[in-house]
């Protein structure tokens, strides 16, 4: 039952209903296509939810809805690649947390949290007002947390939200146990998943020894072992990152490194292994013995070494739905610490899109891409800048968030007691 539902969800790609062949033209802005230089006086034309043209000075087609972007900056919709959006509503309220599994062996590879995705999360309207059009939302905790999904931030049901699920396996090289023990457990798990794949029939008959995890976990790891699903490993200390690189090499895994406090120390290795790194642009505190080398120019150093970087503002474990849109300030801070502005933009758009397997549809502005576009009042990394128009698959999605409603109600606090409900 569960698996068939999941398969049905997984099969969904893009099928949001669109009102006819509606045409939107965003005209006159400075367009940042990401896969190419910026275009002054650029036009982005979106037809029936897909971008059909991007270029300088293109005229809006007759009948198109025109968004005047003169003096504005136009970018692909931003993607926050590490959130719990739709999975955690109020962090301290257990009944609103659907992002973790308490698994005795620390392995819940089977876990596909998007079945419990809350499309009505009040944080979703806020996130899209802030210029996010997609996020990766995923599980946290344990050694193997489960699988993450890429969702677009519009839709009434999980099916409508999901762009790609599963998109990645999430794992953690934390320090809950001796490091060597954890790495051995990880290898044991991957070995057993391999063995399981060749002995499914015997397994079903009970003719195999006890495996390191249950059937659902062993099944779920197959695409990871086949290299068709990336595995995000959260690791901070240099030696933990090197262990992740080693294990990825041994099992031919498609590794994405998250956390990566000391990634700058092994930047060359990460670049050579073509491992993208998901990390923030602000942290510089040795908050634990695993992050003694945490520094605010981590992203800049990684990029300089040729690493494909992805900027996030939180982690799967720590949550991050309420202010998921603040990821753009992480980018701004990363730029102030030496990351190139264009690299920062890429790290919020194309880089996460490609790492999570949706780069053919989102993350850049070009004909054939989905119409996930944001018109900004200025430099999107600046505090004073606002997302003025946010389009997902060609449709405007801005609107009052719960927070907007509250602050309108209390615009004049002394009069609020008499406000109509």
């Amino acid at each position, binding site marked *: 039952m569960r698996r068939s539902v999941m398969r049905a969800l997984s099969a969904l790609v893009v099928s949001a209903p669109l009102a006819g062949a509606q045409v939107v033209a965003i005209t006159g802005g400075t367009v940042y296509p990401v896969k190419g230089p910026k275009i002054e006086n650029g036009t982005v034309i979106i037809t029936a939810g897909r971008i059909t043209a991007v270029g300088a000075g293109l005229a809006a087609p007759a009948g198109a809805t025109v968004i005047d972007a003169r003096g504005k900056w136009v970018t692909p919709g931003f993607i926050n690649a590490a959130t719990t959006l739709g999975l955690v509503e*109020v*962090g*301290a*309220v257990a009944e609103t947390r659907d992002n973790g599994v308490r698994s005795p062996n620390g392995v819940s590879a089977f876990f596909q949290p998007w079945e419990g995705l809350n499309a009505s999360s009040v*944080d979703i309207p806020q996130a899209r007002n802030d210029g996010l059009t997609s996020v990766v939302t995923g599980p946290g905790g344990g050694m193997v947390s489960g699988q993450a999904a890429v969702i677009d931030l519009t839709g009434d049901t999980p099916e409508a939200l999901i762009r790609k699920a599963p998109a990645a396996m999430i794992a953690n090289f934390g320090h809950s146990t001796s490091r060597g023990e954890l790495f051995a457990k990880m290898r044991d798990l991957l070995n057993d998943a391999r063995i399981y794949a060749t002995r499914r029939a015997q397994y079903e008959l009970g003719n195999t020894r006890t495996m390191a995890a249950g059937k659902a976990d062993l099944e779920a790891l197959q695409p990871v072992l086949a290299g068709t699903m990336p595995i995000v490993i959260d690791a901070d200390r240099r030696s933990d990152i090197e262990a992740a690189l080693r294990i990825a090499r041994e099992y031919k895994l498609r590794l994405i490194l998250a956390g990566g406090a*000391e990634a*700058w*120390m092994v930047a060359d290795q990460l670049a050579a292994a073509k491992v993208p790194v998901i990390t923030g642009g*602000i*942290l*510089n*505190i*040795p*908050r*634990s*013995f695993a*992050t*003694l*080398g*945490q*520094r*605010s*120019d*981590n992203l800049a*150093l990684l990029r300089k070494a040729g690493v494909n970087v992805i900027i996030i503002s939180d982690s799967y474990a720590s*949550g991050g*739905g*309420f*202010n998921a849109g*603040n990821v753009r*300030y992480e980018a*701004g*801070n990363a*730029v*102030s*610490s030496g990351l190139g502005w264009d690299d920062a933009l890429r790290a919020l758009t194309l880089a996460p899109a490609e790492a999570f397997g949706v780069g053919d549809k989102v993350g850049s502005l070009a004909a054939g891409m989905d119409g996930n576009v944001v018109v900004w009042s200025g430099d999107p*990394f*600046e*505090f*004073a*800048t*606002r997302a003025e128009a946010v389009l997902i698959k060609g449709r405007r999605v801005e609107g009052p968030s719960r*927070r907007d409603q*509250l*602050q309108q109600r*209390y*615009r004049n*606090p*002394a009069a*609020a007691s008499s406000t109509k409900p």
Partner: protein
Amino acid sequence: MRLMTSVLAVLAIALPLGAQGTARTAPPDTSRKPVTYVAGALSTPNADPFPSTYKARPARTTVIRNVTILTGTGQRIDNGVVLLSGGKVVSVGASVNAPADADVIDGAGKWVTPGLIDTHSHLGVYPAPGVDANSDGNEATNPNTAQVWAEHSVWPQDPQFPRALAGGLTTMQILPGSANLFGGRSVVLKNVPGRSTQEMKFPGARYGLKMACGENPKRVYASRGPSTRMGNVAGYRTAWIAAEGYRRRWDKWLETRAGDPPTRDLQLETLAEVLRGNIYVQNHCYRADEMMQMIDIAHEFGYQIRSFHHGVEAYKIADVLAKEGISASIWSDWGGFKMEALDGIRGNLALVHAAGARAIVHSDDPVGTQRLNQDAAKGVASGAALGISISPEVAITWITSNPAWALGLDDKIGSLAPGKNADVVLWTGNPFSVYSKADKVWIDGALMFDRSNPRSWWATDFELGFVPVVMGGSR
């Protein structure tokens, strides 16, 4: 208020700290208003048992010219000049008379502000790395621990201090955590290296009392009580009743000095000093309705709440805060993580400001405390979205003069005016741009951080050997 403050400042200088007998200056029984203030003045026999041993570093006469100045008093001076000498701000204006031997800094394209102040910090009491052995911020053993003092938990080697300095932070109030109804005394620190916490203590700064509303105390003490908000309120009131009796007994003895003094009680001593107006209440409280309850409790017992901390719903009662003279130490955009934080909005700072109350950007976070300017910038942007226009010269007061007021130190810090301590930040650009960083930071006129000279950066003892030394990246 301003007059009162300056009178108190004079007294604080005239009377040696910790001297017995200073208590005689206090009126005996009835006063519930701030009286002659000396740190812990009415704690007998020793008013100041852990005195500050802070010493300002050698300061050079310094001129910063050709710079945009935000004074912290609501003014902006373009192409201005600041003169620092003897550890004080000497003059601020379009031009100054600078001595020939002054260090001259050309601030072309740069901005100058007062040193930033955080009313809500746990640096030192929740240091990095965050291991249990150094987790000293919450004495979560009793709902009332007014007897504990945060300064006895501060680890001066916390590597978070120098990182905050590199963000322009020069003064901070270190608070106990929020597990308890009464968490204990705060301490105000200068952001300087010290072998002891005493070497960091802001001379003459008064203590604060950390109080906490709502979810945290009732969660921590669920099994023994208080386990409800009404239990919380009963806990505050019971304690204040005891404190009032203690204050009366002591004040009577202090007046007559007849017979044996009453027995000292560290817990009641702190609370009594609040009732005398000598210690300010710094009240962790999220919800508007709970803040209103706390205001009534303050009225019942005749003390002042100096600042509500976190106050994610301050905007709902901004008019009341203005009327009551209570500041709001708040974030620009944080909330949502628990029920009492659910109604956090981004317009909080702007709405509090617009209602005429004192808005303060606080951090409660070692990352946020490094960039109070950025949080203020977010508050400004959110104000603009509500049609509330806030200029940089006003926004800077949220992180300088307003927090200085909340700590009772606005006569010394928080603004660039002649005679004020020379706590100054030179920014690489507009401090409300994401691309600006603190370039140089002075405390009492001494250059404490210079971005251009990584070799000069303060690294705590802990960092030696543990934190990789590759210059540039950790500040």
